[in-house]
């Protein structure tokens, strides 16, 4: 019979059970398993990671602001999850392909998104905010967990092509309950597909604490399916990068999928439509504020004597610049004309839809003729 397993209930203990390289106050601790994967990361690279996280936080804040000002229908903030997103995404090779959920602003940023890409979907202009082929990132996915299977299929294609690529999928702690996410692990293991699963356990699925989905470490599920996994401190950007490099190496080596659970925290509301004060304690939030991923890296850089005023100023300027361009792009967006509602349903002509389009065109034209 299997050994007795102890549930982990409180989020504090939660984090203790995960791998880390930097402590919350920015001290570097030895981690024999992860250290080799970030042995090359020097101060300049650390500063680049810091810059990424700063810029991302600014993009995220701008998204919230634009929504509050009525420019976006919705925004899903990623504040608090910068280390997870930047750490893992910066480990990707250009040819890798990402299947995200809807909160991965940091991932599309790291893949080279244009300023308008962050808002185009949330503003309701288009179904996909960015060009998937250009970024090698699938459109944001709203159906919880659906994208994980797409990643596995893509990875099967990689394998068949004999390509040196990895498919990567991001999803939340809530998503781990969906059948699709479990089937994705099963199919990936069955085909030894080169896919990396990244679960961002941010402790909440809207109002439900992670314990509703699992009272046990989520990373512990993967090995049962034959998938090696690691549970990493998701607010430690170095640990996230190291874990991701391990996982990508594993997948690239042809030995099948790997799984990462990044233990982090959603500092903001679920989306701008949500009011988290209805369901979570100020105290919990406060305790996570003390584990802020950016502050942690800053403390580390400061201790190394590598956090110059210059860097901070440059970072601030870059962040402001992208926020400005994001806003300008957003406000400048021109909604497609009415008949665009019919565009792209099919790749080839569909007589039924064409007739509807024609009738609707005639209908629209009838107003013009009246005028």
């Amino acid at each position: 019979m299997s050994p007795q397993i102890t549930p982990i209930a409180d989020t504090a203990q939660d984090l203790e059970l995960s791998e880390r390289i930097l402590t919350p106050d920015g001290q570097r601790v030895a981690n024999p398993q992860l250290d080799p994967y970030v042995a090359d990361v020097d101060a300049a690279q650390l500063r680049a990671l810091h810059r990424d996280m700063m810029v991302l936080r600014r993009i995220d804040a701008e998204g919230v602001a634009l929504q509050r000002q009525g420019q976006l229908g919705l925004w899903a903030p990623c504040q608090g999850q910068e280390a997870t997103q930047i750490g893992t995404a910066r480990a990707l090779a250009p040819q890798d392909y990402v299947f995200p959920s809807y909160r991965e602003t940091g991932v599309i940023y790291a893949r080279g998104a244009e300023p308008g890409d962050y808002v185009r979907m949330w503003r309701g202009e288009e179904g996909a905010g960015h060009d998937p082929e250009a970024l090698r990132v699938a459109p944001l996915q709203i159906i919880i967990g659906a994208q994980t299977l797409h990643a596995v299929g893509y990875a099967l294609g990689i394998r068949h092509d004999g390509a040196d690529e990895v498919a990567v999928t991001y999803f939340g702690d809530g998503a781990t309950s969906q059948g699709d996410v479990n089937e994705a692990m099963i199919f990936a293991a069955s085909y030894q597909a080169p896919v990396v699963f990244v679960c961002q356990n941010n402790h909440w699925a809207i109002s439900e604490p992670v314990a509703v989905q699992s009272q046990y470490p989520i990373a512990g599920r993967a090995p049962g399916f034959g998938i090696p996994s690691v549970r990493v401190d998701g607010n430690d950007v170095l640990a996230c990068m190291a874990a991701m490099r391990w996982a990508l190496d594993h997948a690239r080596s042809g030995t099948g999928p790997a799984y990462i659970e990044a233990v982090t925290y959603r500092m903001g509301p679920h989306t701008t439509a949500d009011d988290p004060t209805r369901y979570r304690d100020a105290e919990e939030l406060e305790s996570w504020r003390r584990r802020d991923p950016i502050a942690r890296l800053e403390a580390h850089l400061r201790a190394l004597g590598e956090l110059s005023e210059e860097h901070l100023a440059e970072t601030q300027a870059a962040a402001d610049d992208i926020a400005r361009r994001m806003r300008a792009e957003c406000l400048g967006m021109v909604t497609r004309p009415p008949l665009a509602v019919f565009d792209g349903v099919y790749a080839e002509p569909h007589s039924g839809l064409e007739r509807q389009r024609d009738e609707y065109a005639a209908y629209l034209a009838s107003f013009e003729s009246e005028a």
Partner: protein
Amino acid sequence: MVEMTLGKALSAGLRQALRDDDKVVLLGEDIGRLGGVFRITDGLLDEFGAQRVIDTPLAESGIVGMAVGLAFRGYRPVVEIQFDGFVYPAFDQIVAQVAKLHYRTQGRVKMPITIRIPWAGGIGAAEHHSESPEAYFVHTAGLRVIAVSNPEDAYRSLRQAIASDDPVIFFEPKRLYHHKGEVDLDAPLADAAPMGLARVVRAGSDATLITYGAMLATALQAAEAAEDEGISLEVIDLRSLSPVDYDSVAASVRKTGRVVVAHEASREAGVAAEVIASVTERCFEYLESAPLRITGHDVPYPPAKLEKYHLPDLDRILDAVDRVLDRPNSLTGADA
């Protein structure tokens, strides 16, 4: 009679159902502490406890499958699907289990499950948050399908759905959650008209305008606008989509001889097709023109900025009215 929003009427209906029968349990994502993303279950966790207002893991098939098991044990589960577009992962459990178990067991196992679905568009939402999937369920034998359009109906028919021994897919127009109306909270359920009857919301004589859900408001506006032009429209709120109350519908069509059916859902094999096919079958000799459909286009629900070109509005309905009345319209041009 008290005035309340449709959302509050639904809350009141759930509260009353929970009080009336301790076999009633609610299941769904975020329905507990949060009270649901639309706050329909607000306060119910406090009043009835976590055994009866149950936050579930994030998996719709799991939720409905679990409801089936609870029904096997004599419970009357009420499931909340968070948004219309999230019902599809539960489709197999709904279509192959919920709809069929009563038939499979010749009535030995009852499935008194109510599946509440915040429904349809017009709220500027992101993808998958504005779907109108009702035709899938209307086409599925073994289910009943209800679509409400006002607080009074919402309160009464939700309680009736929960009290019914059959599974009911219960559509709640999100767009109307904040719309107000009079509700008699104390009217005994036993005295209420049975679930399943349509309602003539506005009497008229020139054409029959058939709709349901949030589109009813648009239909009524259309009827007012038409009246200004001297056209008298009879407006019918179907309220029940399976069964459809064809007695009421046919009575109206026999009177007017002209029919427009409007809904947000896409057209091919939608509810309007069903209504028109049935009405034509029953009232052919009374029809003076071809019944018409005004529906969402046969496209996936578009991005928010385009939804106003997708949803039937006043003008599209009036244009269809002109067509069934052989008046000048968008297809004939102004000189017809």
